[in-house]
């Protein structure tokens, strides 16, 4: 029994890290641009479809899919940033509507090209086996995914806290006008953040396709879970996003196994508690 829970908890870590990779992009875009990118799930789905198209079992194909996915995401994110630029001075409603419109167009495009059925995206053959874990057979790919995503999370944390672009990024998140006044090219920082955010989403799509594969509706599922992660984790914070993603991953796996009826309420409860606590800490909106 305890082993079942342990194995499910590992599943939860994998799912949580998948959510983190997508949500990190969302929180980056929100922090720097003050835009809620409602087309973020569509970017994830683009990556998942790239994995379906390019993965043929070999590690090399898989690497090609990863590179193609990241490129598409970076280009898509930069294009999205350019599309948001003329809307910035008209307010949040216009930006939300534009990203929603892009999400609708993308959803229609995906079903037109790939049909309405879920598609398989198998992990590369060298990683498709399974290992013994306390009497259970556990897929190697998920363990590999955990390793890769953990490295990605560490790299992201290091880049944001220890590098010069990270400093520029944090300055822009903290106070855009002041950052611009000190000579930071905030426009360039914004475009870079959009590109990196988009690239993270599609990379997560390629990596995560064997876990949460390409199918219509996955874009909304991913968007909603990432949004909850960002709201719980706090906007623009990589550490908070990681903690929230791992927690949501555990609730969605171990929580569902332990208390199938209470799990969705647990997530709601955590969200409300976090909002209430933050409301007490927050300064009144001015």
């Amino acid at each position, binding site marked *: 029994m305890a082993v079942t829970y342990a194995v499910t908890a590992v599943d939860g870590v994998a799912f949580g890290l998948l959510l983190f990779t997508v949500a990190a992009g969302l929180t980056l875009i929100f922090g720097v641009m003050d835009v809620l990118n409602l087309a973020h799930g569509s970017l994830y789905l683009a990556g998942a479809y790239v994995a379906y198209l390019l993965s043929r079992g070999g590690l090399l194909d898989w690497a090609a899919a990863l590179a193609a996915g990241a490129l598409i995401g970076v280009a898509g994110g930069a294009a999205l940033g350019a599309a948001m630029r003329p809307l910035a001075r008209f307010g949040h409603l*216009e930006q939300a*509507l534009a990203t929603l419109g892009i*999400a609708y167009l*993308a959803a*229609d495009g995906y079903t037109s090209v790939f049909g309405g059925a879920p598609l398989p995206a198998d992990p590369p053959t060298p990683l498709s086996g399974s290992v013994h874990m306390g009497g259970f057979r556990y897929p190697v790919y998920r363990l590999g995914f955990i390793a890769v995503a953990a490295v990605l999370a560490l790299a992201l944390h290091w880049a944001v806290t220890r590098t010069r672009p990270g400093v520029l990024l944090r300055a822009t998140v903290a106070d855009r006008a002041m950052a611009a006044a000190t000579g930071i090219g905030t426009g360039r920082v914004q475009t870079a953040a959009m590109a990196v955010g988009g690239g993270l989403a599609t990379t997560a799509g390629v990596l995560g396709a064997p876990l949460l594969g390409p199918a219509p509706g996955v874009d909304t599922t991913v968007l909603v879970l990432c949004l*909850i992660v960002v709201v719980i984790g706090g906007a623009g914070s990589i550490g908070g996003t990681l903690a929230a993603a791992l927690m949501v991953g555990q609730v969605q796996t171990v929580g569902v196994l332990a208390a199938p009826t209470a799990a*969705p309420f647990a997530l709601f409860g955590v969200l409300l508690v976090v909002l*209430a606590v933050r409301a007490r800490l927050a300064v009144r909106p001015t």
Partner: protein
Amino acid sequence: MSGAAVTSRPATPASDQTAAPRVARRGGILVALAVLTAVALPFGVDAYTISLASTAIVLATLAVSTQLLTGVAGLPSLGQAAYLGVGAYTAALLGTTATTNALAQLVAGTLAGTVAAALCAPLVLQTRGTAFLMVSFAVAEMARTVASKWTDVTGGDEGLHLPPVTIWPATAPLRGDGYLYLYLLACFLLLAGTVALLMHSRLVLVLRGAGDHEPRLRALGHRVTGSLFAGYAIAGGLAGAAGAMLSAAHRYVSPADLGLETSALALLAAAIGAGSMRGAVAGAVMVVAVRDLLGAETGGHALALLGLVFLLVAYRRPATAWIREHTSRRPR
């Protein structure tokens, strides 16, 4: 900058005051024509169009609720579907267990929506702008998850079926599409009349002011927090009423009814209306027409068509501003 705006204001009303009655009269005639067309509709069109019109009425009610927050108070809400869901499930549970009385269901749905919104308001109203958009969306998605998992009460993903509503205790249940449509129209006109009165109230003035420049209004000593709370609760009540209408119209409620699409389309309708209530209603009719009438002609690409409408509405103001900037220079 805002000081200049205030001092330049008195210059404009001189021309506005002569134009205002004429514009108001023309608007009144348009509304009367729209109501007459809506009442006459079931006598002239087929059952499918009537069911679409019923859908449009429910969406219009939700759009009015969304407009009160988005267009009036400046809080872009992507979560009004949550309170629609609360109202719809309340009405449906009442219909299956207690009474099929339409008015009782409408009142119960409205009250439930108001109470749910009032409970969430202290948390949701801590945020503004994009953060408000995010939090309202998150709360709505949580409501949808609860609706799909709380199987004992909501029937889970299978949803709840309810018997047809009755207008008066002893009368026959409303089964015909035409009668049901007229009932929904009556509910909508009642709510629209209430909102029209509300729009002339002091509360809405404060909400508008808060949407334009909240710190200024606070500095002037207005009770912004309380007003926003009241506005949010009223919007929740309107959404709850829309939910009760939805459950009466479909005789069925499921978690799919309170998904992202419902909130998104209501927000789109409100944005088409650009701050006005009549515009939001017209926007809701337009959205349903684009999705279900025009969309049916595109061979399964209704989503792309909606996506284009979203983009058109989003870029309407930047595009007109750009055109104005580039045309006004030439005469000089």
